[in-house]
C-alpha cells in the first residue's frame, strides 16, 4: 500500500512530517550520511543578528537517557548565514527554516526583516525558549505578553511562515500557545529543552560551565508528548512535536497526540540515519494499519 506522508504545516508544504531540529543539524551543510528523500525540512542552528562565541566548555553532559547542553547559541550572525548558507539552501529540495533569536523583541523583528525574501529561507522559527543565553531566550517564552510581543514584532516584518518554538518551563503552556497564535504565528513547535543541572562530584560544582543546560533525549519524551498534546488542544494552528524522538513509534505518539509534524534532534547525534528510519517507520506503520494519508491518522484530541 502506498501511503501519502505529505503534510501542510503553517504555510509550508512538506513532503514528509519529519524535520531536523534546530541545533542538531548545523546549517545542513555538514550532516553525515544524510538521506534527503526522508527529510521533510530542517531548522537551522539558532542565529542572532551578530556573531556569538557561545559558552565555555564543558558544554554537554550525558544524563540517564538524555543529555544536557549549554552551547549558548554560538553562531556567525545573520549576515554570514545569508552569505554562506542560504545560497546552498536555495538549491535544496526541502524547506529550510531559520531559528531566530534576540535579546529584545525589536531584534527579533530586525532579523525577520533581514531574512524576508532571502532565497533559500522558507520560514522562520522564533526561539523564545533557549535556556542557555543570559538575556532574551527563555525570558520571552515564559510570559504570554512577552511571547506575544516577540511574535507580533516578527509577524509585522515578514511574509514568511512564522513558527514559534516554546519552552516547557512554564506553568500553563496553553496560555503561551494561545498568546502566540493570537499574535499571528502560523504554527507552534512544542517543545524546547527542559532546564536541568548535574553535579561533578570531584569538583563539587555543576558539570556544565554555564551551570545549567537544556535536557534533551528520550528522558523528556513523555513530558514532551503531554505538553505537545496540551498545546494541540489549546490552539487551532498546527503543532510540530519535539522531544526525545528516536524511532517511528515515538514520532507517532506525537502525531496521535495532535501534532501535524515532528522534529528529530538529539537522536541524530547517536544515529545519523535516525530521520530516515523515523520517516520510513511512519510509512510502514500506516501501511500496516491501512491508513492512506497522514490526515487520516486518528488523533486523540478531546476538546473539553
Amino acid at each position, binding site marked *: 500500500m502506498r501511503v501519502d506522508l505529505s503534510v501542510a504545516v503553517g504555510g509550508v508544504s512538506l513532503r514528509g512530517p519529519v524535520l531536523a531540529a534546530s541545533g*542538531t543539524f548545523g546549517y545542513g551543510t*555538514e550532516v553525515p550520511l544524510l538521506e534527503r528523500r526522508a527529510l521533510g525540512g530542517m531548522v537551522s542552528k539558532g542565529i542572532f543578528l551578530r556573531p556569538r562565541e*557561545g559558552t565555555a*566548555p564543558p558544554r554537554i*553532559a550525558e544524563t*540517564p537517557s538524555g543529555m544536557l547542553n549549554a552551547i549558548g547559541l554560538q553562531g556567525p550572525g545573520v549576515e554570514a548565514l545569508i552569505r554562506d548558507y542560504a545560497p546552498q539552501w536555495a538549491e535544496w529540495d526541502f524547506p529550510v527554516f531559520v531559528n531566530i533569536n534576540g535579546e529584545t523583541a525589536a531584534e527579533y523583528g530586525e532579523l525577520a526583516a533581514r531574512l524576508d525574501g532571502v532565497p533559500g529561507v522558507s520560514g522562520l522559527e522564533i526561539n523564545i525558549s533557549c535556556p542557555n543565553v543570559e538575556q532574551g531566550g527563555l525570558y520571552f517564552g515564559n510570559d504570554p505578553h512577552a511571547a506575544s510581543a516577540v511574535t507580533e514584532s516578527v509577524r509585522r516584518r515578514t511574509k514568511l511562515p512564522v513558527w514559534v518554538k516554546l519552552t516547557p518551563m512554564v506553568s500553563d503552556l496553553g496560555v503561551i500557545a494561545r498568546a502566540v497564535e493570537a499574535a499571528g504565528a502560523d504554527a507552534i513547535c512544542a517543545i524546547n529543552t527542559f532546564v536541568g543541572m*548535574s553535579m561533578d562530584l570531584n569538583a563539587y560544582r555543576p558539570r556544565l560551565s554555564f551551570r545549567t543546560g537544556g535536557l534533551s533525549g528520550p528522558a523528556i519524551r513523555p513530558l514532551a508528548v503531554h505538553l505537545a498534546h496540551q498545546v494541540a488542544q489549546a490552539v487551532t494552528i498546527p503543532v510540530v512535536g519535539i522531544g526525545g524522538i528516536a524511532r517511528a513509534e515515538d514520532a507517532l505518539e506525537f502525531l496521535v497526540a495532535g501534532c501535524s509534524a515532528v522534529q528529530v534532534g538529539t537522536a541524530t547525534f*547517536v544515529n545519523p*540515519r535516525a530521520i530516515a528510519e523515523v520517516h520510513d517507520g511512519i510509512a510502514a506503520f500506516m501501511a500496516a494499519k491501512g491508513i492512506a494519508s497522514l490526515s487520516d491518522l486518528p488523533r486523540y484530541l478531546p476538546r473539553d
Partner: protein
Amino acid sequence: MFLLDAAITGRRQVARDMFVIAIEAPAIAASVRAGQFINLGWSNGPLLRRPFSVYRTDGDRIEIVLKAVGGGTAQLLAMNRGDGLSCLGPLGHGFEISAGPKSVVLISGGLGVAPMPLAAREARSVGIRVSWVHGARGADDLCSESEGDEVVWSTDDGSKGFHGTAVAAAPDGDLVLACGPNRMLAAVADRWPDALVAVETYMGCGTGVCLGCAVPLKRGGYDRACKEGPVYRAADVDWASLPSHLPYAVTA
C-alpha cells in the same frame, strides 16, 4: 565517513586496567589517518556514542585503547569477541605527517598512547626517525606496546625510566606530536609552540553539528574538537580555558 556494523574480534591487556579492543571495520581501517577517531555505539549502551582515537590498524581491523573510566567504557570492556558495535568514522583531522623533517618526537601520557602507533607508522613510512616518550604514574601503568627507533619511559613515581613527566623526559625533534591529559599538553605548548597535539573533550555528535566539543582558541572563540580538531598546533589552544580534568559521570 562510514557507518558500519562491526564485530569485536579480540581484546588484550597492555597496562594496568588498560586494554586494546580490535574491531572488524574494513572501510575505516583502509582510510583512517593517525590522530583521527571513531565514534562507537552499541545496543543497550549509553545514549551518546563514545569517541576513541584509532590506535592501530591491521588488515581489515582497527584497534582502540581504553580504560573503564565510566559506565560506557565498562560496558565495552565487558563485551565478548563477536559482539556487535556501530562504528562511525574516521572522524576529525589527524596529525599532518609528511616527508621533510628528519625526526619526530611522540609524547604520550597514559591513555594518550592512543593515536601514537599510527603516527609512528606514518612517520616511518616517509623516512622520519621516531622517538617515542611515554609516561604514566608508575611502571605498571605504562602501555607495553610503545615502539620506535628510540623509546623513552617516564614515571611519576620513578619506578621505571625517567623519574618525572614525559614532557621533561622528551628530547627535541624537528616535529613534536603529543597526546595526553590537557595539562600535559599545556606543558608541551610551553616548550614547543609548534607541536601538534590531540586534545580530549566531551563529544556529542562527533560530526560537527552539536558544537558540544568546543575548544577555546588563543585568537578568541571556539572551534570543534571533532571537526577542525582533535589535533591542534599547541600554541593555538587557550589551555587555561580548556578543562584539564574530565569527570566521567556514571550514567544509567
